[in-house]
């Protein structure tokens, strides 16, 4: 799993599942302004997903478009990391997920912008600006929750602790891929540890490193997410919307 198709599909799935989870916050955010902000980030992720999945479909050459890839695959065929499929939890868990995801996506897309594949480079150039904003937003909230009240500190640390093990999978080496994720780890560690320090939070120390998403071995959560996302599309085979 390191050819251009697998690689592009995995990034597209990351963005799609992240968008699906973030969109679940709509009408539920802690403040109305934040409802708008989370929808913006979800829209960015969804936009990236559409570009990446469309391109993956072209690379595959089997006639699958973005919707065929999004709606007509089962969970064993999805290649997203486990991190994005985890349930939203409370706002702290969501911000912890967003911090880890965006601190990974930013150097990834930045590297992609300079890669040899022109299409991926164009996608990277567009999405890295969005990732910078997502990272900024996540960091802003992690600081506020970490250094806010006693309760928010407790919840934010718990959120980081819960999410942290899932970061490992993001950086598994893929030497043949357009960008080797292993090369992004140092950048990620520097970004995240600076944010956590400022937020008076501690970097969790955990040897547990759940993985499998890139091989289609997911958590139990993904199948439910897909069941909801795909239900209408699958109920009307061949229909146009």
């Amino acid at each position, binding site marked *: 799993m390191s050819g251009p198709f697998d690689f592009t599909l995995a990034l597209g799935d990351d963005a799609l599942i992240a968008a699906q989870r973030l969109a679940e916050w709509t*009408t539920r*955010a*802690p403040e*109305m302004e934040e409802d708008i902000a989370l929808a913006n980030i979800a829209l960015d992720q969804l936009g990236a997903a559409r570009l990446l999945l469309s391109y993956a479909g072209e690379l595959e050459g089997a006639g699958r478009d973005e919707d065929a890839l999004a709606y007509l695959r089962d969970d064993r065929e999805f290649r997203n990391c486990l991190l994005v499929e985890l349930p939203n939890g409370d706002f702290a868990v969501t911000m912890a997920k967003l911090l880890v995801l965006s601190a990974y996506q930013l150097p990834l897309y930045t590297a992609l912008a300079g890669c040899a594949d022109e299409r991926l480079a164009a996608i990277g150039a567009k999405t890295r600006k969005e990732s910078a904003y997502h990272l900024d937003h996540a960091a802003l909230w992690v600081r*506020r929750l970490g*250094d*806010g009240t006693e309760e928010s500190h407790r919840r934010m640390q718990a959120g980081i602790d819960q999410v942290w093990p899932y970061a490992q999978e993001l950086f598994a080496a893929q030497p043949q891929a357009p960008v080797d994720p292993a090369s992004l780890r140092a950048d990620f560690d520097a970004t995240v540890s600076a944010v956590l320090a400022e937020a008076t939070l501690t970097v969790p120390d955990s040897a547990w490193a759940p993985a499998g998403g890139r091989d289609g071995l997911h958590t139990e959560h993904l199948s439910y997410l897909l069941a909801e996302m795909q239900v209408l599309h699958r109920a009307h085979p061949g*229909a146009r919307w």
Partner: protein
Amino acid sequence: MYGNDFSGEDAPGGLLGEVEAAEAALRAAAERDRGAPGQDVDLAAYFAEVIDADQKIEPRDWMPEAYRRTLIRQIAQHAHSEIIGMQPEGNWISRAPSLKRKAILLAKVQDEAGHGLYLYAAAETLGISRDELVELLLEGRQKYSSIFNYPTLTWADVGAIGWLVDGAAIVNQVPLCRCSYGPYARAMIRVCKEESFHQRQGYEILHMLAHGTPAQKAMAQDALDRWWYPSLAMFGPPDGDSTHSAQSMAWKIKRFSNDELRQRFVDMCVGQAEVLGLTIPDPDLRWNDERQAYDFTQPDYAELMRVISGDGPCNRLRMEHRRRAHTEGAWVREAAAAYAAKQASKEKVAA
């Protein structure tokens, strides 16, 4: 054209053209300068003069207490409707049948949150805080549009909301762009401009369904059947029973009666339904040559009153959802306030 609003014929560019005309009228009214009231001018007379001249009342102007109260009630109700109105459509974001539709719907629901915030800000210029308004909503002491107490059962309902509910809202809101209260008129101009895509996306959804598979077409017709009369009811009770109308019209808060707007809406929809190939569920709907308008069956106003008073299919669900989001977000808002206070005191020490 100024002060006369639309004549019944669409301004160039349709509804969006009317919004632009309203904006131009607002600018023109601002150009016709009016000195401030002198020392011994009767403030009430001055207020009446401004209204008569189709100029705008601004926040620090003197205004009758009843004008202020009416505006607070109406703008708040409008803001609450935008916020609660996110729920029925938000219900389908996770299941939207294509990624393109998912993106459009998410952006639309997000716009509604934005519109709610513009309107809360307009209400706040009248001397009430957003916190207070939110509390009034959560305690059930202020209303929101009855339409959002109906469920979205199928994807076609998302289309029907865009076409009919947003369509009715626009017919209601375009005249509000000329409302006598400046901040409300300006907020409505912004809202109406942004909403122009909402109705079109709804219509497009229904058009795709109506020209799709038999199951899709049936879904579209079913949605029209369920949303038609509740949409007509959105214009409020018939003029004879409307409690606030006369005074609001005199103050130029409201510029057309409920029945005038309802008629205008029906006349617009008939042709649009024909293009869709769907049937409006009203056997008595027919063109009246004498009135140059369609005759139609009135919605069930008793049902409207039941829904407004809390017994619609989804009133409890919508309110519970809003209350839960507010309650569960409290610790986040407290954390942000605590962080801001800490930072402010650090800055003070540093200074």
